[in-house]
């Protein structure tokens, strides 16, 4: 079993939601990102989404845009992110690592060379925000041959028949974008999320992670009642940028542990298992 599936299986058995923090690699520095990951693992992160900075992050709100700009100002490239992943992998042999970013830095390396390098670095999954199923067929097959999960986004606008298409290509988990908008937007509607996640489960057998717009213990709990995993990005980056760089790891870890505690002290319902029972 690969590391992503193992993490979901372990938490499902424990009746707990999977917690997936996102952090932009190289913000405020590559070394700091490494420390931030360690700190978040100690705080109870189950999977790490490692953001690959891109000059034109069209799907991201201002917080993650700023993180990418800082990382790029540090000269951080996809190759650097792969090196960082390899280094993190040495310290955390069973931690699932997912790269998340945009298509062009991968194109620049070449899809085949990227797949090989990602496998060598110990990357478990890849999310390419602007590479939807229509365009991703060959790349998906290539990543699978290298044992890397291909994680696709599902949006509030995704019609049911399209979920079937996504189900054919997706492995690891699917990432439900909880709202129409960019990362870190403020108009999360948990009732709407419940409806959509239920619809996704009718078409996709994989676990469902939900992200975009989760910003505190209450919204994390509300989402976890319906989803297998809670993904949090902008709010963590706000912690990272909200003080001295040398304390960024401590702040990110401290904040994430409040979310972990909230998820683990929820009333004992097992929404994912219950939803899957039908």
């Amino acid at each position: 079993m690969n590391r992503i599936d193992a993490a979901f299986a372990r938490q499902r058995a424990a009746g707990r939601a999977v917690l997936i923090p996102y952090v932009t690699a190289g913000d405020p520095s590559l070394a700091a990102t490494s420390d931030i990951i360690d700190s978040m693992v100690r705080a109870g992160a189950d999977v790490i989404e490692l953001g690959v900075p891109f000059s034109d992050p069209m799907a991201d709100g201002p917080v993650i845009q700023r993180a990418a700009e800082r990382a790029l100002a540090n000269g951080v490239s996809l190759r650097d992110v792969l090196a960082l992943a390899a280094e993190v992998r040495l310290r955390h042999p069973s931690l699932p690592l997912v790269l998340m970013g945009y298509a062009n830095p991968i194109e620049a390396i070449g899809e085949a060379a990227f797949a090989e390098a990602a496998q060598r670095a110990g990357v478990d999954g890849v999310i390419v925000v602007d590479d939807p199923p229509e365009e991703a067929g060959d790349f998906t097959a290539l990543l699978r041959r290298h044992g890397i999960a291909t994680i696709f986004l599902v949006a509030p606008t995704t019609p049911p028949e399209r979920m079937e298409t996504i189900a054919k290509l997706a492995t690891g988990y699917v990432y439900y974008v909880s709202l129409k908008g960019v990362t870190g937007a403020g108009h999360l509607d948990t009732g709407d999320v419940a409806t959509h996640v239920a619809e996704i489960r009718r078409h996709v057998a994989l676990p469902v992670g939900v992200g975009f717009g989760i910003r505190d213990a209450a919204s994390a709990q509300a989402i976890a009642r319906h989803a297998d995993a809670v993904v949090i990005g902008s709010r963590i980056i706000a912690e990272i940028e909200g003080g001295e760089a040398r304390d960024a790891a401590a702040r990110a870890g401290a904040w994430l542990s409040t979310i972990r505690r909230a998820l683990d002290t929820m009333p004992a319902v097992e929404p994912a298992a219950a939803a899957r029972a039908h």
Partner: protein
Amino acid sequence: MPPRGPREELPIDLPEVSPVREMPDERGHFGPYGGVFVAETLIAALDALKARYLACRDDPAFIAEFERELTHYVGRPSPVYHAERWSRELGGAQIYLKREDLNHTGAHKINNCIGQALVARSMGKRRVIAETGAGQHGVAAATVAARFGMECIVYMGSEDVRRQAQNVYRMGLLGATVVPVESGSKTLKDALNEAMRDWVTNVDTTFYIIGTVAGPHPYPMMVRDFQSVIGRECLTQMPELAGRQPDMVIACVGGGSNAMGIFHPYLAHPGVELVGVEAAGEGLATGHHAASLCAGRPGILHGNRTYLLQDANGQIIETHSISAGLDYPGVGPEHAWLKDSGRARYVAVTDDDALAAFHACCRIEGIIPALESAHALAWAARIAPTLARDRILLVNLSGRGDKDMATVAERSAARH
């Protein structure tokens, strides 16, 4: 009138047999270029747009209304003008100008905006958004929004807001809201990013009027179709005026909509050479330019695969051109395909050469061209003397230069 050339017998309405003319494929690909590289949230909106646009394209009532607007609101057909004095002075080929500068709002951009506003209205969208660099597309979008009673938001890099104050004011007069974009390089590409972010957020109510033949499918096809009125008119006008079709069609290329508009109807005329002129800025060797076809390599940005100016790591780099409308690191995917297939040729002209052509056109022909169009004029002025007097060059004079007064004055002051 110059002597008739060997290609006068070409019929005007060739059947669409060339594979190039059947592009793109169903999913928006021009060979390896184009496509739909956007986040999942926008896919459904693009599917709906494609379905509606294809229906409009085949709807005689839609076409009739589009043509009516072009005639009575835009002022089409725009004339073709024989620049006789300039041609004589250059001593070679005859230069003809397609006068898109005479359109309402002063550039070709309005053709596309009328078309997209009609599609938006047929989809029941009352809010339109647009990105703009120099402000020409923003002004055209604000104009049609006023004309059709729609709310209009224009995203513009804060650097461009500063450089193009007059167009910002014009958009305000027309009732549009201009939103300065502070992210990234604060120019056109960042305005496009921000417009995409608005669209993803307001996708149910909003129609995104993209200003050029780039972006995700169906935009490159749809914008090309709306702009093709330029080339179709030329197909009729050139035989009337010059006795035959031109030997070469020349147009400037930023995103490439005016070039695609005049090139496309000529694709089926293999004897007509097509030349796109990019902005070489301070020179291709300096790195300060915006010539993505001449000096870039393929990549993915803003919804499509195309030639991009990017660093070795796939990060988009900042561009430079004296002309804000050409100051963009990508180019429409159909141009990428035309380049690779050899059907069109792409060259680049520096800021200095464009300025020289700008001044020549003002003084010799009494026409103040946009700095964008001056790039196409510069190429024509360069090659005309090398060609026989019976050769015909058709240049798309895509816009007028009123908006560029401050830029030209600043530049001239710096020189003297």
